[in-house]
Every structure is written in C-alpha cells, then in structure tokens.
C-alpha cells in the first residue's frame, strides 16, 4: 500500500521541506550579530566591561523562574554587557523551574547558569557535584559587593557557588495611606499597637486583615513567611538558625508558640479574611489577589513582601501618600533590634567555561545591579546599588532596610530547608493549619518528614 501515489512526488515534497528547514537554519544563524558588536568594544561606554572581554561570539544560557516583564527587563539589563563583550546571553524563564532544573541537570542538559532562589536546592546540587565552584574573580566580586550573611547561603561545605542577584524584603504590611488618613488610623510601630489597631478596625465592622496563600504548585508559601517573620520576632536569630538547620526539632515549643501567635491573626474569624470569607478562604485565595480588597476598603492590612508592589491593579498609586503603601512588620520587642525576613536568587553555574565565569562575575557587579535597577522594580542587597537608581518607593524602602546596619536579616526559612520539607510538608502543613488542623499535629507531621 503506497502512501503516496508516486514515489517521485513524495521525494519532491520531502525535498522541499528539507530545503525549507535548511534555509531556515541559515536564517537563524545569520541573525547572530556578535561580529558587528566588536566595533564599539573599545568605546568609553564599554570601559567598565573591559575585564570581561575576549570571549566574543560565545554563548551563555541562563535558566530561571523569572518570566514575562521581569524577564524582558533582565534581558535589557545586560544588553550593554553583551554589546561590549560580544557574549551572547540567552535567558529562559520557566514556571516550573524548581522541578525542571534537577531534571535538566540529571539529564545532562543543564543550563550554563541558573538563578536559584532556594539555598536548599543549591546545597542539593552541590552535594551531587552538579554545580561548579565560583571562580576567584566571582568570589572576590561577591565579597566586595554583598554582606557576608548573604554569601553564606550559597556556600556549601566551605565552597562558594555564586553571588546573590535580586532580593526582596518580606517583612512588610501593606495598607492604604488614604484610608488610614480618612479613618484617623496611624501606622503601628509595635506589635501591640498593631493588634490594638486590628481590634479598632474589627470593631468598626471591617475585617482588618486579608490574606491569601494559594499559589498553584507553591500553595502555602505565604503562610510559611508569616511563621518565619513571627518566629524572628518572638525568638533570637540564633533560634531561627537552629530551626532552619534542624538543630532543634520542627515542633519545638518555641516554634509552636510562633505558630500560635501568627494564628491569633490568621486564624481569628474576627480579623480575617477581608472580602473573601472566613479563615478557610485564605487557603483558596491566590496570593496575587490576597491584598486587593485593600483598594476597595474591605480590609486594611496585608502582610506581604516588597514584590507585591507589582500585584496592585493598574492605576493604583504606590506611595507614602498614595492608594497603597507598606510599613515595616513591627518587632515585638523593639529593644532586640529590627528583624527582617527576605529572599533572593543566587547565580549558580553548571559549566566553568571562561565566558560563563565572566557572566557570573558581571552579574555580581555593581554595574549590573545599577543597570537593572534603572529599568525599574528591582531590589538587591548589592551595596554598590545606588539608591538614586531605585525609583519605586517600596523598592527604595527595601534597599534602605537591606543596607541598614541595625537590621537583623534572615533568609526565608522554607527556602533554606531541604525541598521535601521547605517546599513540601511545610507548605502542606500550613495549608492544613489554615484549613483547621491544630498546631501540634501540623508541626509533628512536618517534623516526622525531616530526615
């Protein structure tokens, strides 16, 4: 049974298709413009990139969880670098980055660089020998530009694997300056004031807080941030460190205490969940929508990170005198300093080709941090970052907090833990907890999963 009436006809079709593919391949090949870029490599603009030169025409592939506008902004941020050095950086962002990266690494298809937001995952790759130690240049650059605290997170067994890139500050409570002014409320500076304010708002018939922890695959993470932020306020940073490294059990009474304190807000039917329903509606409300009722006056307070600035509806003015703004999630005992919870991603290399190392070093530099900040919506712990380049007021506040010496900074605990706990049972436990399960059995469940 012949598929084609005449073999010659089939040959012709296959030939034409083959030709088309061949021509196409040439087409994409010729769009590589590395050759023309070398012309301006010696210009004044390119002076800061001199030390990265000498790899013209080489390609570096980056893989991360950063997508859409944020990804476009990243592409833009290293444009000058690409033009001056002739290195072609291709960035790919994926929604299921955390699940895909190990698959790609195991399958021998690892990217050159990856932006990993979980120190726990970096540790996993390091222990399996899949990632390369950072070059001496990268290490020197990182040590110069970042606080020692931050470098610790990407150091496994004494080996430094890569510098931080972007950061965020999580210890923020979003509110509406407009509404606060209308109602005569003032921004609380201590935990007690915050609870008093919540009661005042609740008595006026509005649910003071709104929250949402639904986040697709990652449902539960906003609640882990709550617990971590409260733990940093009820215990010393040392206890926090012991908890994230499992030196004390997950169900230690001090952790249970933090959970219960967070519960006085999150599991309080009088306080939540503005505009969405009862306590359990927190579990099904997406984190993107979580704080939106603030704009319609259905709730007044929403604890969420600096990056929530991007979630507000269009035409919402984010400013100290605007529609929404954020205040620092107050400390419980102000005499113990200013605990700050935050996160960020780290630039880790799966290849040690010189051009990959050049890009890795460049991404740790002040040039890149400022180049990226100028484009908008960017926070970094990089101390070369010029505050004048940060336009968004919340980002400014975040950078100030990160550069403030009195802040006691700690990295997001669930990201520090092994993924099976940090991104597994901890998230799941928080969902169950919001859904009505008691503190003790939730913590017991998480503890027993940590091996």
């Amino acid at each position: 049974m012949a598929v084609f009436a005449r073999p010659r006809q089939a040959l012709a079709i296959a030939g034409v298709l083959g030709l088309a593919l061949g021509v196409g391949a040439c087409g994409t090949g010729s769009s590589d413009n590395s050759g023309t870029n070398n012309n301006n490599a010696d210009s004044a603009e390119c002076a800061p990139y001199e030390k990265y030169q000498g790899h013209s025409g080489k390609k570096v592939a980056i893989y991360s969880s950063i997508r859409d506008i944020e990804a476009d902004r990243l592409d833009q941020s290293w444009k000058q670098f690409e033009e001056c050095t002739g290195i072609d950086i291709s960035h790919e962002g994926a929604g299921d980055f955390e699940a895909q990266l190990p698959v790609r690494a195991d399958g021998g298809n690892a990217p050159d660089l990856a932006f990993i937001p979980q120190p726990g995952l970096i540790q996993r790759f390091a222990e399996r020998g899949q990632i390369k130690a950072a070059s001496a240049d990268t290490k020197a650059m990182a040590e110069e530009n970042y606080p020692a605290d931050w470098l610790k997170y990407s150091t496994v067994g004494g080996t430094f694997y890569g510098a931080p890139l972007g950061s965020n500050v999580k210890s923020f409570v979003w509110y509406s300056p407009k509404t606060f002014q209308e109602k005569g409320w003032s921004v609380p500076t201590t935990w007690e004031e915050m609870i008093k304010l919540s009661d005042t708002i609740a008595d006026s018939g509005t649910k003071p807080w709104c929250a949402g922890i639904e986040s697709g695959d990652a449902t539960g993470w906003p609640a882990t941030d709550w617990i971590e932020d409260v733990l940093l306020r009820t215990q010393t940073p040392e206890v926090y460190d012991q908890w994230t490294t499992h030196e004390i059990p997950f169900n230690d009474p001090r952790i249970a205490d933090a959970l219960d304190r967070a519960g006085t807000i999150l599991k309080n039917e009088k306080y939540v969940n503005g505009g969405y329903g009862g306590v359990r509606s927190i579990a099904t409300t997406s984190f993107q929508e979580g704080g939106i009722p603030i704009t319609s006056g259905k709730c007044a307070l929403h604890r969420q990170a600096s990056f929530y600035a991007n979630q507000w509806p269009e035409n919402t003015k984010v400013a100290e005198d605007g529609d929404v703004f954020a205040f620092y999630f107050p400390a419980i005992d102000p005499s113990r300093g200013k605990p700050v919870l935050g996160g960020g991603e780290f630039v880790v290399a799966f290849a040690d080709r010189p051009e990959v190392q050049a890009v890795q070093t460049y991404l740790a530099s002040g040039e890149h941090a400022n180049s990226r900040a100028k484009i908008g919506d960017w926070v970094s712990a990089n101390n070369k970052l010029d505050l004048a380049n940060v336009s968004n007021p919340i980002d400014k506040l975040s950078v100030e907090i990160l550069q403030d010496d009195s802040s006691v900074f700690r990295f997001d605990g669930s990201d520090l833990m092994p993924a099976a706990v940090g991104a597994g049972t901890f998230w799941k436990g928080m969902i169950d907890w919001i859904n009505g399960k008691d503190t003790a059995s939730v913590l017991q469940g998480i503890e027993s999963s940590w091996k």
Partner: protein
Amino acid sequence: MNFDFADQAPKMMMLLWGLVAFAVVVGGLLFVLDAVPSYFARRREAQVLAAYASGGPSPRRTKPREGFFALFFLMPAVLLLLIGLVVPALRTTLLSFMDGGSQNWVGLDNYRWMFADDAIVRVLLNTLVWVTLVPLAATAIGLIYAVLVDKARMEALAKSLIFMPMAISFVGASIIWRFVYAYRGEDQEQIGLLNQIVVSLGGEPRQWLLDSPLNTLLLIVIMVWIQAGFAMVVLSAAIKSIPADIVEAARLDGVTPWQMFWQITMPSIRPALIVVVVTISIATLKVFDIVRTTTNGNYDTSVIANEMYNQAFRYGQNGQGSALAVFLFLLVVPIVIFQIRNLRQQRREG
C-alpha cells in the same frame, strides 16, 4: 485581553519551526516507508519478468526476505519501546531501592516509608477510591445512556453531547470544573455554578474542595464526566452490532425490556464492557492532571501519580518517587494480564 502578534513573534517562529520539523520528519518517514518496500517490490517484479523472459521457473520467494521485511517494520516500534518504556522502567525500579539523591542503596526503605507515612497511606487510599468509583460510575452512566438513546430520535445529537467532554484535555476539563466549584464570599457575587445554585436556593456558599472526603468525590465527578462519553460510544456500537435476528426472536418470545437488557443485551456486549472497564481503570490509576490542576493534591486529595511527581521532581526524593512509580506499575499489571487473557479467550471462542 489583547493579543499582539508582533510581541509573540519569537514564539510564533518557534512554533513554525516546530511545524516544519514535524513535517520533515513525518514526511521523511512516510517517504522511507513508501519508497523502500516499493523498491523491493519493483526489483522482485523485474526478477520475475526476467525469469519469465528467460523461460526458467520463477524464482522462489525466500523466507529470510520476509523476515527482513517484518524486522524493517518492527524496528522503529521495538526501538521506541526500548528507549521509552523498558529502559526507564528498569531504571526506575533500580532507583526505588536508592536514596533521594540516587547515590546509596537503601533496600526496601522507600517501600516501608510508603506504607508507614500517614500522608502517603492517605494517597494510596484515595487512589483506591478513584479506581473503584470511576470505572463503575463512568461505565454505568455510559451504558444506561447508550441503551436509552439507542434508536431514539436525535440519537446522534444526544450521543455527541455526552461524547463532547472526551475531546477536552484533562487539564481543560479540570479548569472548567474548578469554575463550577469556585467559591466567593457570602457578600460577593458567586462565580461558581454550584455555589450559585446553593445561594439561589437560600443556602450559604461552600468551599467545596476543602473538605475531605467530599473533595475527592467531586474530583472523581470530573473524570466520570470525561470518561462516560468513551464508555457510551463503545457500548453503543456493541449494542448496535447485536444481530437483529436475536433481538427479533426475543421480541417474538415476548420478553420485557428488563429481560431484554439482562438476558440479551448484557451477555452480547460483555466483551466490549470488559474493554471499557479495563481501559478506564488504567486511565484512572494514572490520573494526575485533574488532581494537579484542581487542588494540587492539597486538602487530602492527592493520588499516586501526583505524589510520585512531587516526590521525585519537586522534593528531590528520587527514591520515594520511584517506589511510588513502581507500585503504580504493579497495580496496572494485573489489569493488563486480565485483559490479555480475556482477549485470548475471545479469540478461541471466536
């Protein structure tokens, strides 16, 4: 929402290349499959003609050549099966005896974990509920529907209505049903069909997917919705192929519709019924998309395939994930064996 083609140009180009590559590969394959056998056919024709012209006996068809032909057609399938099924299955089995990082042997630890961890036992139980309820409900609904619409007016239309969900992907269907179950606060306008019905009857809106075991049952509804159409189509075809004279004879004997169903229809469509139940059972054991799209396995709704994905790819516990995969494989095996034996038996009877 605006869709800007210019913005999407790189993706469109990639799509175009994908299509071209697909056309080339498939076109090339079809060409090879077409050209090679016809080349041999023509050569043989020439040989026969030459033999005929020289007046000698026609050359004997040799067996080895036939074997070569068979091999030529079998090779791609065998190769793909090896690469895509046999090797991964063996590797997964090995990995299930190793730790999370696939570096040290841990013996049966992962299997012990599977039956000791409350959360995982829950997952296994959920899978059991799925695999019991879905084939039963989907087949029963499909069968009843097929019998009821048989020879009715507008039969084609009625059948296509039930069959339509089959055309929707599992993820698409799950998203549709997520809207059906959607929840909004009491003072808000409901966007979920189910809650709107509840509210218009004077009730309070509920968060349907939060309460176990109700949520698992509601997810099962989605699978039944998809699979009932499949069951209906196959069973309807089987009912139509019951010889008319048997039906006629039964009618002359004066059977009631009830007797007709149990004594004529059911025995006649038994093979089709088994195929349907087996197919749906296997599909149900593998269910992943529905759970992942609707609840992501939260609120005690997880099933084996979903947990396997989480353990292996998200939590970096390759060993535990592999153990779940092997267990799933073991569950499918008896169903497949049953099906094969059944087919053999039918062939013998036929």
